[in-house]
């Protein structure tokens, strides 16, 4: 799941894929609060999993996003 999320971030925002780690925070990746919403939209499109904007805002790093998406995916 981490790889899928990192791929979406790299593709959507033009971030260097190699620079994205599980510890990368939104600040590290230079993603502002609108970008967080844009990311949620891109994840829904590419991975078919929906995460609320308020939840996304709470995510500490890419690892946390991946973990949360797996949780949501399992309850479907």
């Amino acid at each position: 799941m981490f790889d899928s999320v990192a791929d979406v971030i790299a593709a959507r925002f033009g971030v260097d894929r190699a620079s994205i780690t599980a510890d990368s925070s939104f600040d590290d990746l230079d993603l502002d609060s609108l970008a967080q919403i844009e990311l949620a939209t891109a994840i829904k499109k590419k991975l078919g999993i929906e995460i609320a904007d308020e939840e996304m805002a709470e995510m500490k790093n890419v690892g946390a996003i991946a973990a949360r998406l797996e949780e949501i995916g399992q309850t479907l």
Partner: protein
Amino acid sequence: MTTAVIAGLGGWLPPKTVTNHDLSAVLDTSDEWIRTRTGIRERRMVSDGMSTGDLAVEAGLRALKSAGETSVDVVVVATTSAERLCPAAGPEVAARLGLGDIAAFDIASACSGFLYGLATASGFIASGVAERVLLIGAEAFTTMVNPADRTTATIFGDGAGAVVLRRGTPGEPGAVGPFDLGSDGSLSDLLAIPAGGSRQRSASAGLGHGAVPAEDWYLRMQGRPLYREAVTRMTASSRAVLKRAGWPVGDVDHFVAHQANARIVRAVAEELGLADDRVAVNIDSVGNTLSASIPLLLADLAARDGLRRGDRLLFSAFGAGLSWGSAVATWPGIHLT
């Protein structure tokens, strides 16, 4: 069948330019932050007592000249920043334009004001209430924004755009319609100026104006939920109007969207499947001009010689209310003055 046809177009911006650098000198922000977050580099602002009516008159004059008209039956001013709380800007603007004692009124629908105005004017023409309408989107909204609030002080700009609409038929170049309009009042608090209206006055009756906190006189905006609503509603409304018109999205020559934030426009364009070169953008030089944004953008396109007679236009807007609207039209091939 009678429809409204665009017969004239004009735009006007107040001369005072405020750049991101100017704002960074007084606010905790930067040119880079403003540009990447909103797409705005600079905007115009009224000053020295210039206000909405002045902008409306300048744009109105240019639209009338462009149409080769000296009279109309109705003046409609779409604005969120009228000269005073009362009366409406319309009658004063009509008087200053020397149009006589014709019908004149305002439309208060924030950023979707111009679309609501287009639909209203089209209705007047189709029903025979009017043969010619002067519709002006005019805003001096920077006067309604807290200069110390960096989330709103950086976004808005002042200006006015106007169109003359005349009677015509659906197939003519310049014909406007169909439309899609909507609202969601349950989210009215997302974008509001709390003070000045009847709600605040009734609540603080007898306490005096000093009892109202200073910040209540300015716009309050919740940017994140608004972003999500804007993209969702503008996309759905645009899709609905294209379906009504029977236009595949590939037929749209120019997406002339309300310029609230460049990222909203791009996100909507992407959702609709519009190619980048079909998306008109001028927010970089004018900021968010609310009801004026669509006619100003259209005037900009025309001035850059970017429009061909018969070009298919998709208009879409979203804003406070919440309210939204979309419409299609074709470009009449008129000239601006």
